[in-house]
C-alpha cells in the first residue's frame, strides 16, 4: 500500500470526491506553490467509498473559501505539532470568481472572454448561485466543476 507520511504542520484537505483533487489543486493555485504539497487519489473511505486527499506542509494561510462552493463534503484539518488543532467547517462563499462559467449563451461573458466569471450566493439553504451579470443560475448537475 502506498504510504504518504503525516505532516507535522499544515493543512489536510480530506473527503474530496474521488478524482476531484486535481481540480481543487488548480482552484487553490497550488500549481504555483513553492511549498510541499501531496495529492493522494482514490483512498479507501468509509464515508465515500473512495476519496482524494491533499496535504499541504508548513502553510496555514491559504484561502480555502472556494472549497465550500466546489464540494461542501470536504473537511479541512489544521495540523500543528503532529496534531489536529482545528477542524474547519466550510461555508458557502458569498461570491466565487473564475471557478465556473456562465452557461447562458445570451450572457455578455459568452462573447467577452476577459470578463471575470463571477457568481454570487443568492440562497444559502439551496446553495444557489447566480451570475452577477445575467442572473443565470449555476446548475451543478449541468456544469461539472
Amino acid at each position, binding site marked *: 500500500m502506498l504510504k504518504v507520511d503525516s505532516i507535522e504542520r499544515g493543512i489536510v484537505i480530506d473527503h474530496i470526491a474521488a478524482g476531484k483533487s486535481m481540480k481543487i489543486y488548480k482552484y487553490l493555485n497550488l500549481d504555483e506553490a513553492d511549498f510541499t504539497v501531496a495529492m493522494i487519489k482514490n483512498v479507501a473511505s468509509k464515508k465515500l467509498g473512495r476519496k482524494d486527499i491533499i496535504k499541504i506542509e508548513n502553510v496555514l494561510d491559504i484561502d480555502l473559501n472556494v472549497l465550500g462552493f466546489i464540494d461542501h463534503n470536504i473537511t479541512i484539518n489544521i495540523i500543528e505539532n503532529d496534531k489536529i488543532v482545528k477542524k474547519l467547517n466550510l461555508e458557502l462563499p458569498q461570491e466565487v470568481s473564475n471557478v465556473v462559467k456562465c452557461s447562458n449563451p445570451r*450572457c*455578455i461573458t459568452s*462573447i467577452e472572454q476577459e470578463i471575470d466569471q463571477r457568481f454570487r450566493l443568492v440562497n444559502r439553504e439551496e446553495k444557489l448561485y*447566480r451570475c452577477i*451579470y*445575467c442572473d443565470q443560475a449555476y446548475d451543478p448537475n449541468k456544469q461539472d466543476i
Partner: protein
Amino acid sequence: MLKGRHLIDPMDLTVEELESVFKLADEIIENPAEYADVCKGKLLSTCFYEPSTRTRLSFEAAMLRLGGQVLGFSSAESSSAAKGESVRDTMMTIASYADICAMRHPKEGAPKVAALNSPIPVINGGDGGHQHPTQTLTDLLTIRALRGKLTDFTIGICGDLKFGRTVHSLIKALSRYDNIKFILISPEELKIPDYIREEILMKNGLEFQEIERLEDVMNELDILYMTRVQKERFFNEADYVRLKDSYILDKDKMSMAKQDMAVLHPLPRVNEISVEIDNDPRAAYFKQAKYGMYVRMALIMKLLGVEKC
C-alpha cells in the same frame, strides 16, 4: 442619495428612492419650464448596441428638455464594437467625454460590466432578455398616475414572459408593494423564468397564477400589461412563427374588461393590440410613452445630483 449611482436592475433603487424619482417627475410634469436648464453643460451618452426608437429617443428628449446635450451611437455597427472593442473599454472611453451614460446591449449583463468599470452613472437601457429598469420606472409612474397609488390591484401580464425583459423588471419592482395580485398569461413555452417565479414571487409569498387564456381573466384585471413576442430573442425562426400570434387584444376581449381597467404596453407593438383599441379610453400605452420621458428626466437629474435653480 442617488447622485453618482448606477441603475442596472430595478432593485437597485429602494421603494423610497423610487418615490423620490416619481415625485420629481410629478413636479417636472407640472412645471416643465422650471427644469429647462437644470442640466445645462451636462452630456448624456447613449450607447445603443441594439436598435431602439422609444428608449433612446426618450433618453435624448429627456436630456435635451433639461437643457443638456447628447452624443452616442445607435447600433453596434456604428461603434468600435464592430472592430471588436470590449464593453469595458468603450465605457472607460465614454466616461472621459460624458457625465452620464444610457446603454442598451443585446447581451445580458453588458450594462453591469459597464457600471463596474465606470466612474460616471450608467443606466441600463435594456440588456437582452434580462432587465429594462427605466421601462419599469415608466410603468410604475404610469400606474401611479392612473390609479393614484402603487398598491392594491390585480395586474395581468400577457405575452412573452420568458424573454420579455420589461416583464421581469416590472414583477421585481412590484413585488415590493402591498396587495398586488399577478396573473401571468402566456403559452407554456413563454412562461416566466424560474428565477422570477421562485426567487421573487414565491419567496415573497406573492399571490400569482399562471394561465394560458386571456379571456378567462379579463374581468378580474385592474391593469393589463401586454407584451410583444420578440423575434430577436428566438434562436429558432419556427418557434417565433408558431408563437407570435398567441395573444391579440381586440374589441371583443376589451368588452369583457372592467370599465376602469388600464391597458399598458412597453411598445413597440406588432399586432398584439389591435389598432381599434387605440381610441378606447382604457388604452394608456401612448400616455405611458410620455411618462417614460418625464421619469427619465427625473432619473437623470437624480443620478447627476442636479436640482432646480
